């Protein structure tokens, strides 16, 4: 029987890994991810989880060891954040290129410089083209569910790709809320024991893995990766269906709220989505036609599905929790490009990009209200194109600090 328990996002993620019966954990602590790896170490120590813990000396080694364990044929887990993720960057491509179904939470924290302990998405966004699936969660329930969900998705033969489950640092990782914790039996029914379906390092089935590859076949191997990435959208839907049947909770590639007849839709990811929904609800009561779209799956980007919803609005406000220096925010770039076909017919919505919530700044109701106000102005002013991101929560004295 499932149980209701109070836990924060980190505890929920660790609980998810325990229930997924991960066999090897290799991890290195970094704020705000640390409690996940501490909790897993305790689970193993208290024999609540039959796994081996590798106390590596860096995140670089954490991911290498996780890959090694996965190549041996075990279900492997690690977690990281910020600078730790940046240190792993060389290796994230190996995990994905070797098509290993590793699940790795990223507890989002701004990348230096300047140093920050607090949340934004600059760390995970740096990995967005490395060939991992990326899922952004809003609450502790999602954090727990998506660890289990992601192993099932990653291990599907049509996918065989690693998954990042992203949790907003502190806002989610360190905030307690009620979580329905499924029983081991329920999870076992959903997630069978791991069996490697592709690459393994086993003397009984010798293969050379990850070798230097000539231009004659490199493209084809990358293309296999691309196909798997594309497949994962469909597989996500199937896994989601199964998840709903088994656990009664439903997850989509994204979640819409009051979008049907909405003139303005706000697109967000992660914890701020709750605040967005709350404000939309209030404004709807006042008769304003606003809607909210929370994106769950950022990689692969479900552009076509998204365009169907957003294409009908007049204005789309995309909130990026990373600076996207030198361009728009990464989420806005994706949304704009998804809408290109609609926009070209001159009936597409105005897309405004707002950068907010950097380095742990709270994205408040006031900030979102301002975002909506500016987007309405942009729509009314017939401002079709906006090539610049608007830093909506900037202090007035920005240039003199």
């Amino acid at each position, binding site marked *: 029987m499932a149980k209701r328990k109070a836990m924060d996002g980190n505890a929920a993620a660790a609980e998810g890994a325990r229930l997924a019966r991960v066999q090897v954990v*290799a991890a290195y602590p970094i704020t705000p991810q640390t409690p996940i790896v501490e909790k897993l170490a305790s689970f193993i120590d208290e024999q609540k989880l039959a796994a081996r813990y590798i106390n590596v000396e860096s995140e670089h080694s954490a991911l290498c060891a996780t890959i090694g364990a996965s190549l041996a044929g075990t279900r*492997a887990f690690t977690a990281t954040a910020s600078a730790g993720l940046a240190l792993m960057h060389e290796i994230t491509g190996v995990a994905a290129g070797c098509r290993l179904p590793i699940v790795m939470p990223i507890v989002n924290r701004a990348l230096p410089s300047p140093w920050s302990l607090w949340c934004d998405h600059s760390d995970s966004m740096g990995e967005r083209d490395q060939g991992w699936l990326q899922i952004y969660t809003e609450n502790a329930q999602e954090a727990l569910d998506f660890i289990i969900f992601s192993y099932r998705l990653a291990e599907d033969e049509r996918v065989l790709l690693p998954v990042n489950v992203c949790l907003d640092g502190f806002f989610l990782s360190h905030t307690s809320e009620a979580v329905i914790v499924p029983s081991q039996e329920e999870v076992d029914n959903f997630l069978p024991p791991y069996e490697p379906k592709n690459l393994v390092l086993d003397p009984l089935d010798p293969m050379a893995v990850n070798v230097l590859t000539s231009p004659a076949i490199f493209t084809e191997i990358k293309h296999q990766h691309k196909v798997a990435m594309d497949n994962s959208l469909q597989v996500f839907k199937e896994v989601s269906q199964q998840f709903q049947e088994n656990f009664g909770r439903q997850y989509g590639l994204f979640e819409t709220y009051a979008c049907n007849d909405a003139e303005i839709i706000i697109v967000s990811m992660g914890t701020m989505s709750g605040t967005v929904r709350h404000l939309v609800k209030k404004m709807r009561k006042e008769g304003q036609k606003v809607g909210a779209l929370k994106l769950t799956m950022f990689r692969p980007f479900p552009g076509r599905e998204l365009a169907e919803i957003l294409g009908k609005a007049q204005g789309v406000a995309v909130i990026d929790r990373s600076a996207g220096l030198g361009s728009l925010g990464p989420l806005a770039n994706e949304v704009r490009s998804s809408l290109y076909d609609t926009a070209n017919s001159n009936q597409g919505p105005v897309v405004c990009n707002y950068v907010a919530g950097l380095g742990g700044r709270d994205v408040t109701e006031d900030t979102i209200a301002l975002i909506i106000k500016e987007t309405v102005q942009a729509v009314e002013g017939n401002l079709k194109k906006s090539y610049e991101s608007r830093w909506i929560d900037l202090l007035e004295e920005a240039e003199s600090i």
Partner: protein
Amino acid sequence: MNIMQNQTRGKHLFHGLTSCEGCAMELVARTVLDILGTNTVVLTPPSCSAILTGFSRETGWHVPSFMANLEAVASYASGLRTGLEVLGKDKVNVVGYAGDGGTVDIGLQALSGAIERGHRIIYICYDNEAYMNTGIQRSGATSLGAWTTTTPGGKPTQRKDVPQMLLAQGIPYLATASTAYIDDLAKKVEKAKNTDGPSYIHVHAPCATGWRFPAHKTIDIARMAVQTGLWVLYEAVDGRLKITKEIKNFKPVEDYVKMQKRFQKATPEMIMELQRFATEGYEKLAERVENV
């Protein structure tokens, strides 16, 4: 090809690999696999040993292999070893086969971490005293006075002694070895195989291409390094040191240096310093043997 069928030594590595003529790195690899057999997985970093792991659809090993990252052979090996143990495949030998650059420079942290954690992995460093695969650049193992493309005037500083660093850290089995003493190497690999914990063997592996000597001189040069005292063959079981090839009449370092064009830029002072390094280095080790 009857020769290949009759071959008993080195049979776990295909012939016709693209390493250079007279390559010690390849000979060492063959020897290692002769002893370990096919219940083995090998990890190589980018380096000349990557030639063995293969290119596109071809591989050199008869055993499973993985191309690691330059600084991470020991970390991948840690995870692989742990995963294999979880699955009850404890008998599989997990071998890191890495060059000096991947070991003493960029990979030192990962190696030290893996040793601290006590994984049963066998780490073999073939030491050709430079980054050869990228075209002969200095490494932390490059000898004082040696020319490389990044020390065009001869390397101004002495090589670092990583076996002694690892010994200081505490490791169940550690040995140095040489391409010129294959039987000694074989015995050491056997001991590493039977060690319940991490083991490390550092093999001096001359490189005709990078050291600028005729390919048929590889073994002579490796032997000369030992006979001058520049490279001492020893092993340490649980820290107890033993010299496995004692030298009574040392040859002058000059004789070793003369055999290789890479020392052409070395000054007389550098060569004197190398001589001192050889004599004192051997004496210091010998003293430690008596003290344990």
